[in-house]
């Protein structure tokens, strides 16, 4: 994982300075739908422009920097929209960009299919990609719309029908660990897969796997430690109101 100078961030720092300290924050900005050039604007200014609570940005940015950070105030249900926006943009990045990239590199690395293990690696990855796609689509199609409905129900004080049987606890059960097979693939690539004529492709593949792992690790932290507790609070609030 990318090692940064563990910069501790505050809302009045220049956004550009923060990105220059850790270029992966460019990906974070992208997931929030914020694009460069960043000019001389501060974190607070850019967040205000995008209707993003600065504490949400700071909490995520510290995750990217590997610094433990407790937000100054608890997130309210209003922040759930930015969080879902972030998560679904990262899903598009996984499904539309990085997984297809990895698949392309694997095919490039193993264009000679005479060795049995090469076809196996491609099959391994394809199966894994299917699992990931299923998991992400489940979140896109079931979990996020459910949370959006919860939000609307709180905002509009009623009038929205929730699926009666669903709760975020179901989501937790469904939440598989998609990082495991990624680690397997990385280990195979670095330690065991036989030599071929494409050392550059192997290196590119390795870098891409690390980039994915880096983002995925943060992604699951956000889901487990921030999104799920927040949604539970929203569920509790609504059930208190109805009883």
């Amino acid at each position: 994982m990318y090692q940064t100078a563990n910069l501790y961030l505050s809302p009045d720092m220049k956004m550009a300075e923060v990105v220059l300290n850790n270029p992966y924050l460019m990906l974070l900005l992208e997931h929030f739908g914020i694009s460069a050039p960043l000019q001389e604007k501060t974190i607070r200014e850019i967040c205000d422009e995008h209707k993003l609570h600065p504490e949400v940005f700071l909490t995520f940015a510290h995750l990217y920097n590997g610094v433990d950070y407790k937000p100054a105030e608890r997130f309210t249900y209003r922040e759930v929209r930015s969080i879902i926006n972030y998560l679904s943009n990262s899903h598009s990045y996984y499904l539309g960009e990085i997984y297809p990239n990895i698949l392309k590199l694997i095919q490039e690395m193993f264009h000679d299919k005479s060795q049995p293990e090469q076809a196996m690696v491609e099959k391994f990855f394809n199966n894994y990609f299917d699992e990931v796609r299923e998991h992400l689509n489940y979140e896109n199609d079931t979990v996020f719309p459910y949370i959006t409905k919860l939000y609307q129900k709180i905002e509009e004080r009623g009038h929205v029908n929730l699926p009666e049987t669903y709760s975020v606890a179901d989501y937790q059960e469904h939440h598989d660990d998609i990082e495991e097979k990624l680690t397997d693939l990385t280990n195979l690539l670095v330690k065991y897969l036989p030599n071929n004529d494409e050392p550059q492709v192997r290196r590119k593949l390795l870098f891409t796997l690390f980039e994915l792992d880096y983002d995925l690790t943060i992604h699951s932290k956000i889901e487990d430690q921030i999104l799920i507790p927040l949604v539970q609070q929203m569920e509790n609030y609504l059930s208190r109101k109805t009883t």
Partner: protein
Amino acid sequence: MNTHAYINILIVEPSSIIYEGLNRILSGGGLRLRVYRAENFDAIEQCILSKKINVAIVNPLYVQNNEKGFHSLRSGYPATSWVALVYAFFDQRLLSLFDGSISISDSPESVIQLVRQNASTENKETATEEVLSERETDVLKLLATGLTNKEIAEKLSISINTVITHRKNITQKTGIKSVSGLTIYAVVKKLVSLDYLSE
């Protein structure tokens, strides 16, 4: 990305200032870790049961009048290393019950170093050899052909628990956890052939 999973650390410390400070130092040390906190003695065991704690950093206060409880905790969870977090006077004999100690005046580097050492002792014991043992190879071969733990146990006349232990060791040595990943490993290492797999 590490070949091994996270180092799980449990801090058992009443002071939030000390806890947060230690947490910050550990998080900034470049280790892939998760930090948990327990605020009383009983919570330690609950935490070890639910997470696999590699290193428990404990204020000896909690052990002082409960040495017996601490002994049984230690023997019950031999995979966990126990480190004392010292910033008041404690009897040397009490501190000798731990695997090591951190003093409040230690530098961040030496704290990280100590945690790193204590987190890796378990790996050293079980995975010094790179190569799989004969029995582990047997288990891996059967696993690659699609047998379940139970079927492997029956075939090799060993218990399911032994199969699980072998599998843990295989994963620790190779860094590969999934059956499909291990199958590729077995083919690369020519432990099984593809004809054998399709049988």
